[in-house]
């Protein structure tokens, strides 16, 4: 009996270990590309490299975006290395999977700074996850170049001072995004009544909803219905039915791509046919995740890039050849972040983390990137200054571009 129990316990433990090993680890995990780069550097006998860290969700709920950012960064690193590197040194990109978890994110940051000696981190696209890095990056002063829409990630709301290590790079924050979309819907689509449906457990979603409500009412629009859900909820038909019964003329959906897909599908199931207005997460792969894209009859959202632009042809080809999948807007974001980092290192001729922070605050001005011309990083907000966005339209499941847009009703 004891032997059998012992075997059972060993068997269970083995099964548990197998289960856990099926998850992506946060320690010692590098992308295939970075392992290749490391090998090349070692093979060349070079030990003088610049380590660029990456912390993204590579296997969790946000892996669609996380992988895109990380792959874009890897592509940029490979390009820079092929062109001779930075300051005569090759870059090594070390990516860790945070599985969309704050604790894993901090662990990855600590490992990258303590053991891997990364000079900067290409950080997660999730505002909630970025918040977990505020304290540790302020202490260790290794900058995180990330994509949080929540302005509270880069600036202390109480003091108004920027957090030393946090930088929003290559994307405007939620307030700028909300102003742009509310301006567009009022001025170009003549809508006056909005419904908002957002995730109360997601920082990006919450801050975007608040920013939109403020911006919309500021310019004379009316919010007739506000509905909420929580991360991990699956059924939204009750909330959507309430929106259907309101006077709303469109629904603002500041939610991550998977939830946009769920909401649009369930809205179709109950016969709700209002236009959708998204922030940036209705860009691809949103349409490809819908089985029948034509259920999305009318939608508008903003993007930092129009992926069909011929200037991106080479980027898309390289990305597809390397990763076997189509590049998305978030891929360009990861790519641009590395080039902004390159500019910061070259500006101060130093790859020391504190020098990089100094350069990001003071020396990134009128930089021409692949998708953004005249890019400027604001030293006081640690966010881009006056970034133009592209407005995209989905009509009966077909995606088109409406051109660059800047709001006119806001200062």
């Amino acid at each position, binding site marked *: 009996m004891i032997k059998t129990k012992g075997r059972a316990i060993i068997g269970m433990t083995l099964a548990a270990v197998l289960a856990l090993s099926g998850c992506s680890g946060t320690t010692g995990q590098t992308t295939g590309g970075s392992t290749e780069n490391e090998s090349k550097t070692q093979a060349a006998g070079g030990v003088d490299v610049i380590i660029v860290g990456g912390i993204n969700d590579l296997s969790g709920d946000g892996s669609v975006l996380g992988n895109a950012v990380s792959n874009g960064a890897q592509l940029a690193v490979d390009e820079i290395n092929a062109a001779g590197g930075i300051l005569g040194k090759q870059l090594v990109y070390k990516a860790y999977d945070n599985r969309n978890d704050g604790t894993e994110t901090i662990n990855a940051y600590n490992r990258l700074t303590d053991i891997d000696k990364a000079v900067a981190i290409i950080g997660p696209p999730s505002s909630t996850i970025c918040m977990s890095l505020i304290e540790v990056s302020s202490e260790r002063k290794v900058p995180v170049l990330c994509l949080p829409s929540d302005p509270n990630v880069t600036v202390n709301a109480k003091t108004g001072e920027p957090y030393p290590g946090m930088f929003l790079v290559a994307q405007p924050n939620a307030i700028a995004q909300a102003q742009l979309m509310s301006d567009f819907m009022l001025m170009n689509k003549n809508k006056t009544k909005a419904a908002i449906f957002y995730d109360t457990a997601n920082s990006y979603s919450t801050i975007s909803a608040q920013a939109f409500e403020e911006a919309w009412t500021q310019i004379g629009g009316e919010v007739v219905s506000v509905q909420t859900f929580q991360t991990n909820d699956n059924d939204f038909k009750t909330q959507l039915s309430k929106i259907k019964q309101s006077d709303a003329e469109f629904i603002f959906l500041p939610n991550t791509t998977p939830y946009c897909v769920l909401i649009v599908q369930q809205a179709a*199931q109950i016969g709700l046919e209002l236009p959708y207005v998204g922030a940036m997460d209705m860009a691809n792969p949103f349409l490809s995740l819908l089985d029948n894209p034509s259920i999305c009859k009318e939608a508008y959202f903003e993007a930092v890039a129009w992926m069909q632009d011929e200037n991106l042809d080479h980027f898309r080809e390289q990305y597809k050849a390397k990763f076997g999948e189509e590049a998305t807007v978030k891929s360009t974001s990861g790519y641009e972040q590395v080039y902004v980092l390159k500019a910061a290192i070259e500006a101060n001729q130093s790859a020391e983390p504190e020098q990089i922070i100094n350069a990001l605050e003071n020396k990134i001005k009128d930089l021409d990137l692949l998708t953004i011309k005249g890019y400027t990083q604001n030293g006081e907000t640690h966010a881009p200054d006056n970034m133009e966005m592209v407005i995209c339209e989905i009509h009966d499941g077909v995606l088109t571009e409406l051109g660059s847009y800047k709001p006119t009703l806001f200062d």
Partner: protein
Amino acid sequence: MNIIQLIINGISLGSVYVLISLGFTLIFSVLKFSNFSHGGVMVVSAYFGYIIARQFGFGLIPTLILTAIFGGILSSLVEVIGFERLRRNNGDIMLYFVASSTLGTMLQNIMAVTFSSTYYSYPTFFKKPYFELFGGTFTIPVSDTIMLGVSTTLIIILMYIIYKTRLGVSIRALSMDSQTAKLMGINVSVVVFMCFFISGVLGAISGVFLGINYVLYPQLGQMVFKGFTASIIGGLGNISGALFGGLLLGLSEVLLIYFVGSGYSTAIIFILTIVFLIFRPQGITGKIVSEKV
């Protein structure tokens, strides 16, 4: 909003929970433990259904039938690998719980590693996703209607098997006392195997409907906790309890979301579950039976 529309929405949501809790309840009634590997079987079956529907273009009925068979076989394999030895050696109930949780997590993670966490959408099986009654006053999703119909049919079939067949007599005998059932000549291994097969069939069908109603991702198996909650409310180990518990849970969630908001509804449901466990642990339809020596 019209209260009748809310009730329709609640019953639709509840029918999902009924399907999940049925498979869960069946195993509890026989082996007296909460089989959380049911979630893993659900999600693996859902992926299987997705693959065959996409690759071969099968319609809803063939997808359901093939996936149900797959789910039954998978669940039986889970029984053989995870529980048979424990059962033969009269393993402690805690070991069953550990084994089921581990197997459930392992199956979900295998799906995450194989398919990544990208969301997949099931093919559209219905030409029109909803139909309207009374000139559009009520809107009823087609998938929910079919799911309710399938749930009801499966419950009837399951009740028939339990109460009108030799297998059902064996299952009921086993649920009362496995030792005595063995002594009376019932092949316990075969009966348990069949229970897991049936549970797997139910899990597979619920997995396909979850994939149709929502989207397909590895963590979809965590919906098994909704089935667990429905089972507690209805009565653990009680088939009719699974029906009432699932529908009541669905209705409660919809009404709470409508009147209180989604943020509080989860907390209130959790509190209600605790209240049931404290004041009526046998659930709505269960009975507390004193065992006589």
